[in-house]
């Protein structure tokens, strides 16, 4: 699982990963990219900075990937999350799911990004023209809250 999940500081090699994941037995590759939007509720964003509790984020992402592969019976999953400063339109997260059929690939991809956004310890700070704030974040599910 370790080489399916990566926290990276350089731009995510989106095209290369999309090539790498495919196999003759696949009928579908579903890709989700989270990219940096130029505003939050109308306030103009200049760039974002992401930080993570890296050991735990790696471990939690590996667990989610394992769970997704079992639950949705997909063949392969790759998740890369970028940290540090990220500019508008650049990808902060990349998820690719390869599977024999499209339904499972779509479902697994959607499930992975939703779970990532709920409980993987990664945070973003938004830098606006007139200041910077940590994003509010999503409330933790009851199972993981202290």
């Amino acid at each position: 699982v370790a080489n399916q999940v990566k926290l990276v500081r350089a731009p995510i090699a989106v095209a290369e990963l999309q090539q790498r994941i495919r196999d003759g037995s696949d009928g579908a590759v579903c890709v989700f990219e989270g990219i940096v939007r130029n505003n939050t509720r109308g306030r103009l964003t200049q760039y974002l900075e992401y930080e993570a509790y890296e050991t735990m984020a790696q471990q939690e992402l590996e667990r989610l990937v394992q769970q997704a592969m079992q639950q949705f019976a997909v063949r392969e999953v790759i998740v890369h999350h970028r940290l540090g400063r990220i500019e508008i339109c650049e990808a902060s997260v990349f998820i690719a799911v390869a599977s024999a059929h499209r339904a499972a690939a779509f479902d697994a991809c959607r499930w992975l990004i939703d779970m990532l956004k709920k409980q993987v310890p990664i945070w973003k700070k938004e830098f606006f023209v007139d200041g910077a704030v940590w994003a509010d974040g999503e409330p933790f599910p009851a199972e993981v809250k202290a």
Partner: protein
Amino acid sequence: LLFGVLKDVYASVPAPSEMPSGATVDSILSHYRQSVPQQAPLLKSIAVAVNSEFARLSTKLNDGDEVALLPPVSGG
């Protein structure tokens, strides 16, 4: 370890050092609640990790444990 907004809020608060035996995750939170009372509500929405695993308020701490306070996450 503190992350995100908690790192800023508690920047000047020393980490709890000597914890009595039998200390729990909640003992750590009390330390921060009392240091900056006006920010105590922040601690209601957090998760806590002990040695990189999600923990409960009642989780007991041992010598050398790494405790991380995690504000609501905003990855993706």
